[in-house]
Structures are given as C-alpha cells and as structure tokens.
C-alpha cells in the first residue's frame, strides 16, 4: 500500500467495510478527446518515465502501433485504425487514434474478480489501483476486466496497469500523460467538469458534421473515470475494438455474489493443499528454475 493519503472506497476480497465518515471527496476523471489526439505517443513516454517502466525495443509489424500491446511495462498504448466512413456516395478516410489503457470503472470488474485481499483497491475519488505486494498473480483481474487491460509480468507474476498516477493525484497533480499531452487532447479534473467539457466538445464536433459524436462513459460498468470524446460515439468498435456496451462478466458477478462462499472454500482448500505441499516437499526452488532457463 503506497498511498495512504487517498481514501479508500473498496478493497478486493475484503469483507470489512471501508471508512465512510469522510464524504466530501470529489470524483475525478481523465477525458481523452480523440478528435484532438495526434497519436504522438508523448503520453506513452511520460507514463514510462514517471512510473519507472522500461519497455523492450521492438520491431515494426506493419503499423504505427508500438509497443504493439499493453504490457506490464506499457500501461498505455496508442491504437491506430484506418476507417473508411460512407459519406453519401463517397468514402471518407479517417485515421482514428485511441489512447488505450485502464478505464478506471466505477464498478471495476477486476476488483470484483480479485481473490487477494487488498491487491486491488478503489479510492473514493474513483481511481482503481493495483497493489502488487498483495497480488498473487492469479490473473482473475484479466478475466474480470471488460477492456482487456491488466497484464501479468513474466518477471514477478504480478498484475500491472495504469494507476491514473494515483501518487501524483494524491498530491494535487494531474497524471503524467495529461501533463505531457502537447495538443490538449487529455484533460483531468472532477468527473463533473470533464463531463461538461466533453459536452462542449461534442457540440463542436456535431457542428463539423459528426452527427453521432458523443461521450464514452459506459453505464454497463457504472461509468468510467477515464472517458473518451468520440466522433463516432455510436460505433465505439471502430476505435480498435473499444467495446460498445462493456459490462462485468457474468461469471465474475456470480463469483462476487452467490458462489463466493463456495469459491472461498475452494481457495481455502487450495491454500491448505499448498501448505501440505510445503510441509512435505519444502519451498519451491526458484533458483533452480532460473538456472534451467539460462541453460536453455
């Protein structure tokens, strides 16, 4: 737990209630105006610099997308889509560029799915954060995420994703990506202000002929604390497969609901098994595994 300064709203796999006495916390949001985003990737670089991430230098695979996907070291990536929109008889080309990363759902599927107490938390301001020291690397957060965002590190088997720079936000700063965005495509503030700003932008886009422009703040996950202004809000899938109507998977809801006691029982059995294994065999030899890898 790195961030005691932010008040908690909920914690994964925890039955005791979170503190509720303080009620005056403003919900925050990051607004990504896709109509102003040039896909320069300055946000990617700022993210890696602020969060001390070092991605591998890859290759070109026939697109501008690099890194190609989110990883434990790339918490945000730009996704480029070339789309031909019908305009009467003619087709109008659009190069849609979307900054992908954690959406910080109000109803976070990852947190619901997480069996490790306190590994995933939601702060009162809406940020959903991973605490790697509590993470058991089970990958349930990936199953629980309707946006396919968390990634498990090969190095330490823990899950990573965008923290919305909760460390910066806790001291009154905007996230690093917002700070660095050269065109003003990313804004940060209260969810209310960001919704107002989005409305203003939508009016402008509609005037420019994008009749279906709108705000992406999907209700299926209770709304999000990362929102998009889209020129084609009726077809979010155009933007590199942004889900039209995301929701927390039924299986996760089930786990959180009726089946949870059963599942916890299963977990308990597994842990017991682990303990027995330890008592009988001793600790797993991680060094031996490493040596094997090096030899191969």
């Amino acid at each position, binding site marked *: 737990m790195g961030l005691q300064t932010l008040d908690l709203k909920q914690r994964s796999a925890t039955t005791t209630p979170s503190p509720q006495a303080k009620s005056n916390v403003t919900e925050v949001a990051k607004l990504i105006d896709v109509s102003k985003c040039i896909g320069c990737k300055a946000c990617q670089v700022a993210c890696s610099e602020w969060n001390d991430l070092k991605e591998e230098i890859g290759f070109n695979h026939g697109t501008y997308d690099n890194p190609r996907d989110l990883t434990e070291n790339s918490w945000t990536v730009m996704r480029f889509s070339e789309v031909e929109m019908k305009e009467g008889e003619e087709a109008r080309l659009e*190069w849609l560029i979307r900054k992908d990363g954690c959406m910080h759902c109000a109803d976070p599927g990852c947190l619901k799915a997480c069996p490790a107490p306190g590994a995933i938390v939601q702060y009162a301001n809406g940020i959903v954060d991973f605490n790697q020291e509590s993470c058991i690397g089970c990958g349930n957060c990936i199953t629980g995420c309707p946006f396919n965002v968390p990634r498990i590190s090969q190095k330490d088997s823990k899950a990573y994703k965008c923290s919305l720079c909760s460390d910066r936000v806790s001291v009154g700063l905007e996230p690093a990506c917002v700070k660095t965005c050269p065109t003003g495509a990313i804004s940060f503030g209260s969810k209310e202000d960001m919704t107002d700003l989005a409305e203003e932008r939508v009016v402008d886009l509609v005037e420019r002929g994008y009749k279906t422009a709108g705000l992406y703040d999907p209700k299926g996950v209770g709304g999000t604390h990362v929102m998009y202004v889209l020129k084609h809000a009726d077809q979010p899938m155009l933007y590199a497969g942004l889900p039209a109507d995301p929701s927390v998977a039924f299986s996760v809801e089930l786990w959180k609901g009726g089946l949870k006691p059963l599942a916890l029982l299963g977990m308990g059995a597994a842990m017991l098994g682990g303990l027995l294994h330890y008592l009988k065999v001793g600790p797993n030899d991680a060094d031996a595994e490493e040596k094997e890898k090096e030899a191969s």
Partner: protein
Amino acid sequence: MTNHWTDIKNADVVLIMGGNAAEAHPCGFKWVTEAKHHNKAKLVVVDPRFTRSAAMSDYYAPIRVGTDIAFLGGIINYLLANDKIQHEYVKAYTNASFVVNASYKCEDGIFCGYDEAKRKYDNKDWAYELDKDGFAVVDETMQHERCVMQIIKRHYSRYTPEMVETICGTPKAAFLKVCEMIATTSRPDRVMTIMYALGWTQHSQGSQMIRTGAMVQLLLGNIGLAGGGMNALRGHSNIQGLTDLGLLSNLLPGYMTLPGQSEQKIEDYLAKRALKPLRPNQMSYWQNYPKFFVSFQKAWWGKAATAENQWAYDYLPKLDKGYDVLQAFEMMHQGKINGYLCQGFNPVASFPNKAKIVGALSKLKFLVIIDPLATETSEFWQNFGPYNDVKPEEIQTEVLRLPSTCFAEEDGSLTNSGRWLQWHWKGAEPPGEAKADPEIMAEIFTRVRALYQKDQGAFPDPIVNLTWPYRNPKFPSPEELAMEFSGKALADVTDPKDPTKVLAKAGEQVAGFAQLRDDGSTSCGCWIYSGSWTQAGNQMARRDNADPFGIGQTLNWAWAWPANRRILYNRASADPAGKPWNAKRKLVAWTGEKWAGSDIPDMRPDAKPEEGVGPFIMTAEGVAKLFVPSGMVDGPLPEHYEPFESPLATNPLNPKNAKAFANPAARVFKGDMEQFGKPDKFPYAATTYRLTEHFHYWTKHVHDNAVAQPQQFVEIGEELAAAKGIRNGDKVRVTSNRGKIETVAVVTKRIRTITCDGKKVFQVGIPIHWGFKGVAQRGYIANTLTPFVGDANTQTPEFKAFTVNIEKA
C-alpha cells in the same frame, strides 16, 4: 514565421500544406486545436499522404509530390476568376498596380533572359517601367495590360482546375472544395494562416512554392493580420537562430550578405543593398544597411575597423560562387576540399545520395566531428554490414571526435519559429569530457591565431585582428555573446534631431537598431537581435505571459526580433486609413497621432495614413511583391516544373518544351544529371519525412523514443501493395538510381493511388530517422535514395520528390 505560434489560435481557416504540423511540430499544433476548439476554425490539409495532420482536419485533399506550385497556382486562378480577393488590400498593399517593362515575357514555361548553357537567367527584362524620377509606374485601376494584376491573371489562367487535376492528381471536386474553404477568407474580417515546412522547402523549386503560398495570402489580404501570415515551421530547435546569425555560407548576421567578387569596393557593395525607394514616401528600410553593416564590422574587428580602411571591408571574403553544403561536398568529392570541421551536423544521414557523401568524406585528409552524439558521420569509415558497406582499410581520413554539450547542458537563447528569443538555463552538467561549442571553438581559434601571429602567412589580418574581448578567452560566456549580438555604443550616441540629447553613453548597450550608426560609434553583432539585451538587462529572460488584449500578444514574454515585434507587416492589419480590418483582432491602429495597439507597430510611429507609407517597409516598393523583378534566380513568377525525378515523362503544363520540364535555373553538377532515374526503371514517386516519435537522427539514441518507433519502414498504398504481392509487415527493397534500402512495408489506405496526365501514379513514403548508430533497430540511411540537387535559390536538397522502384525482398 511572419506571425507566431500562439497567434495561430486566431485563425478562421488553417491551411497545412508542405508540412505536417501534427507530426513534426506536435507542441505547436496545440494552437491549431485551440483555433478549432475556441475560434471555430476549419483545418484544411493538402498532402501526398493522409497524415497525422490530415487525421485532425476538416478537409483533406491528396496531391502528387512536388506539384504544389500547380495546386497553388490553381488557387490563384480560382481567386482571380471568381473575384475572391481582398480588393482594397491588393490595391494598396501589393504591387498589383505596378507596370512591368514591355520586354518582359514568359513563353512555354521559360521567362525571358534565359541562358540554357549556363542554366541562368538575366533578370534585366523583369523590371518595372520607371518614370522620369526613377519611380515605378503604377496604374491604380489595375487595367494596364502590363500591370502585375493583368500579368498574373494571364500567367495563372493556364492553371485551371482540370490542369491541377492533370498535374497534381487531385480530383477536381476536391481541389474546388479546398478553393472554396480558402476563399472564405477574402473577406476583410476573416483570415487564414498557412503552416508549411520542409515539404515546400526541400524541392528544386522550393522557394517558389513558398512564394506561391505568399501570393495566395496576399490576394486574400491575410498577411500582417492576427491569425494570418506565412508561417514557416522550423525543423530544428534554433535553426531560426542559425539563419538569423548568418550561418548559411553566403550570409552575414541579420540577413546581410557576403560581397561577391565583382564588389571589391565597399561603395558598390552598399549601393546594391541600401535600396532606394521605388515609390514616393516609402521607408525602404534597407536604406539603413550601412548602419547595420558598419556596426557589424566594428563588432568583429573593433579598433581595426576604421573609416580609413573602409571598416575592414577587405577582411571579408568575396564570393565567386555559392559555397552551400551541396557545393562543399561536390568539391570534397572532386578532392578540392581536404579538411572538414563538422559541427552539430550529420551529413552521412542528413544529406542526399549517401554513397556520394561517404565517398567525399573518404577523400578527406582529416575530419573533425563536434557533436554530443556518436553520429553516422563520425563512423562513416566503419563497416556496418549492409547498412554501411565500406572497406575501412581503404579509407585514410583521420577522424577527430570532440564531444560537445547538448542544449540542456548550457545556458543561452533559442530562437523559435515565431522569432522569439527565449533564454534558457542549464538543466544538467555535461557528461564526461563534453565541452560547450563556444569553448571548443575558442580553443581552436586562439591556437590558430597564435600560429598566424607567429608565422604570419599571406593575409593574417582578419584572424589576428579579430575582436576577442571575453573575460575568459578560452570560453566566451553565453551572456557576453548575447550582449555582443545586441550591440553597444562605442562613443556617445546622440539624437539626430537634437544633438544635445544622448541616447546611449559610450560603453552602454544600445536600446535597439534605431540607435546604430554608420560612423563607427556603435557595434552590433546582429542588427535584428539589437534590443535583446539592453541597459535594462536580458530581455530574452522575461517571463511575463500577461495577454492584455486576449489574442496571444504577450509582449513581455521573452523577446522577438525585430524590435520585439510579434507580427511582421502588422500595419497591414489596418485599412489604408488606419482602421483595423477586424476590431476583434486589432494589432495596430492610427490613433490620430501615432500607431499603437497590441503589437509594436511595423511602421514609422508618426507616419500619418495620408502619407501613404506602405506596410512592407523592407521593400523598395513599400508594398508586397506578387511579381518579383529581382531577387529570385528562377523567375519573377512561380511556374510549375516537375521534380528532377518525376513519374511523368513530360511536364503537362508545357509538354512540348523539354527545357521547362524541371526547374531550368537549378544548379546540377556534372554526373548528377546522369544519376536522375527515369520512369521506366523507377516508376514510383517517393518522398521522405519525419515521424512524431523521433527527432531527426538524434532520438534513435534514446531508449523511450526507440520503443515508440523501433524500426525503419516505408509506407505504400493498398493498390500498389496488391500489384507487387506485398503484405503488411513484409520486407521490401526500395531502389533509386543511387542505391537501395531494405526495410518493412506498412501497407496503408492513407496513401491512395492518384491519376496524373492519364497515368496511375503510386507514391511511396519513406520516413527518415534510422541508421547504423543508436539504440533503435539498425536500418539503412533513407538518404541513400535521394538525389543530389537543390532548390535554385537556396540549394536546399530535393528530399521531398524523387522516384524509386519497390519490390518484395
């Protein structure tokens, strides 16, 4: 830029052409998004590729590489034919009414005065008709058949929408849509900005492309206005400062020029540059050239520059020809230059025809590299497999590498595209043995001077007499250099109207170039920078961003040349009576006593409107030149020529005149003409460009940039890819008549097939940025492919239009 970055937010229409601001100037592009968001501006992008800028645009039109003059000439024709010009502006502020000599003509794409053998024009027949007082004859009605308005009407009547489609491949409907959007700004209260960059500069007719853009802006009345202008987006941090300080081989600081061989006497030199007014009452500000020049000579040679020795005029070299970089490498290639100091420059990667550049460097006796990075040039002699396949044992050049600091490791000023000199402070100590450039140069200079003092030589005076007043002669400080550029009084400078009034005491910094004198009583290293460091201190370090007029005119933020003026020609933002064309975007207005407003007036402050002093104070005419009687070597009007390498066999505008195929006045070296590819072997039009993830050849040395764009690629359209059996991500081989590169193909809808002169034209996009040094994946130098020819006026290489073939590797 005539205007500045922040001012772009005031535009109603933004035209990005010959540049890709979202890609190459992402921070400046913010002002385009501001104009769209808060000023309801429309963004129009014309480019061979659907770029990142195009992705942000309200309208995009494709164009074939190298055909921008045809497109812009077509716009001129549209504006004139449809009466979409700002009449009052054109009449009062341009030379549309000036009458040209009867001997002027242009036939089949060639102007009068052409010497084919020398590939040069004699411009004497492009002059104005003069009256008995030596003033140009004008016809206010603009009906005279030889007045500029009628000449340009006739010249551009050939540039019909159909001809534009034929040459540029832009569908007629798309071209007309662009014309309509642009033409809305012919209204006095609407304004368009043009943002361009090396997409116009780097052509054999690049200067004329830019001029055509300026002509469009003048006809629309968009120069000198907030939100308007011709805005060159400079491609390197401080490349504006480089040109301002005269680092081009034919320049002196402040856009003064080196003398030519025929100008052995200072009188001849000054007479040609101190332009007499061509119309009554005009300021013709270059009349002050002797003041700037003498002050400059005093800055360099101090007490050794006297009235008796014509201010040390003999110390300046007299040019027999231009010594631009292409010329220098040509001479190196011929073995005529055998030592080379290469400072902050990576010619192996940055200059055309890599094989020729490496061949030239291989003939040197010594090469000195002054650079913060281990550049390709510094290791041109090493074998890097296919990326640099040379034999080190056959190269005898001795290479000396002097590591220098980068901008963040030193104090100083950077001049941005908008002419702002912004002082900055060191952010980190330089690593290892790296030294600042002034320190390195001072070491070299003081040692060379000692040699001349000891051994004399043929003409040691310019070296041994050079002023070197720095506290530490081995390391002139940035502050001392900045003060020297701004200038000081050597004796008391008095008011010419009242000699008892002292404007600047001896030893004081001058307040600006108005205080410079031609009698040796002032010194100034760069007259346009005069006033950047005054008695009040360093004006470049000011950081007050107050915007009292709400249009981004932050006059107390840093300092802009000239005279802290933010928008050039701002007198033209008001009508001839002195009333702003648009009160909401007021720059200056006549108050009844003087010119005042949100900017420093670009006008004599007390010039009453009825005096008719024109707003273009640097020209002898006082107005802007649609037709240029002198100053351009390749014609008084822009004319479309094909790039030296074209996918077409003839120039569709002048198909029968082979002389007018490519720019007839561009210099081509022997051997290079033969290396131009022909369409049968190299059928595809190609262009090179930057990506936003990288800066030139620097950031491939930086891990995070290399992650964002790790590996070289080329972009081709889907139709060409299908025809060649190339799939997205396949390895391909791109060849020109000068070499080959092998790289990854990005197959994209963003490069579409166009039809020119009845023929399908495919275009190939080649990003630069990769090479054989750095942490990114190794790649071929993109300039292996590009031709060794430059713009006729500036000799900037034609990187933006050439031909290639492409095959699956």
